[in-house]
């Protein structure tokens, strides 16, 4: 009993140390948000992002539409809307192929959530936007090329 209590105390101590380190920005806050896919977001190429997020690099063509400007004058704010008629979407991911870290966002959806997401992303330079949808354990993707005249990655 007392040993268990000791282990428990040590556990909480270690936990709080990690918490402090994380809030100081020393550790990546993987410990704070268990769901945040660190490896996928850290990846510097599309294949790594796909693998980190979906454990697979390949996706079939599917009923996915990407709405984004053909030419974005300001890469810091590129509006993008993804719609999909695929049933039972579990996850929708947005990837900007030529960004330093391609994975921009991942959306986990409930059964009542429709296949529709709209947001604004940063694009460092002209690149393909890739939308990946996971539904029923299968992967589908679509892409669209967006030309960027001024980059949005702080350069």
């Amino acid at each position, binding site marked *: 009993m007392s040993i268990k209590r000791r282990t428990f105390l040590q556990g909480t101590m270690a936990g709080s140390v990690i918490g402090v380190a*994380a*809030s100081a*920005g020393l550790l990546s*806050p993987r410990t*704070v*948000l268990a*769901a*945040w*896919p660190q490896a996928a*977001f850290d990846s510097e190429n599309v294949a790594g992002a796909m693998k980190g997020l979906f454990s697979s690099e390949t996706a079939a063509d599917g009923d996915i539409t990407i709405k984004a400007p053909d030419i974005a004058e300001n890469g*810091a*704010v*590129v*509006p993008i*809307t993804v719609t999909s008629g695929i049933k039972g979407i579990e996850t929708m991911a947005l990837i*900007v192929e030529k*960004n*330093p*870290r391609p*994975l*921009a*966002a*991942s*959306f*986990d*959806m*409930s059964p*009542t*959530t*429709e296949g*529709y*997401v*709209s*947001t*604004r*992303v*940063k*694009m460092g330079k002209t690149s393909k936007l890739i939308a990946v949808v996971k539904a029923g354990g299968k992967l589908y993707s679509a892409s669209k090329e967006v030309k960027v005249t001024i980059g*949005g*990655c*702080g*350069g």
Partner: protein
Amino acid sequence: MASKSIRIRAKAEGASTEVKALISHEMETGLRVDKKTGEKVPAHFIKEVVCEHNGKTILTAEWSVAISKNPYLSFKFTGGKAGDDVKISWVDNKDDRDSETAKIS
């Protein structure tokens, strides 16, 4: 904590409800160089946004620094009706967080 960082508009049209949200946040990439000091500005960005309908999670967004400053998010779901609660909360990489609840109109 900075309150009112989130603005939500939720509108039901038939079976479908469209939620639009605007969040005030720097979304600093960690790549930008401060012109005065010549040093890189540390990354500061929202990592996770959770959207709930009457207490049930309907969308969890995991974001990177590639989401634009003052993020905009819009999504749709079925089963919502006027008067229902839509709650949106975010947490960033410095563990700052905020949440806001709005009624569907």
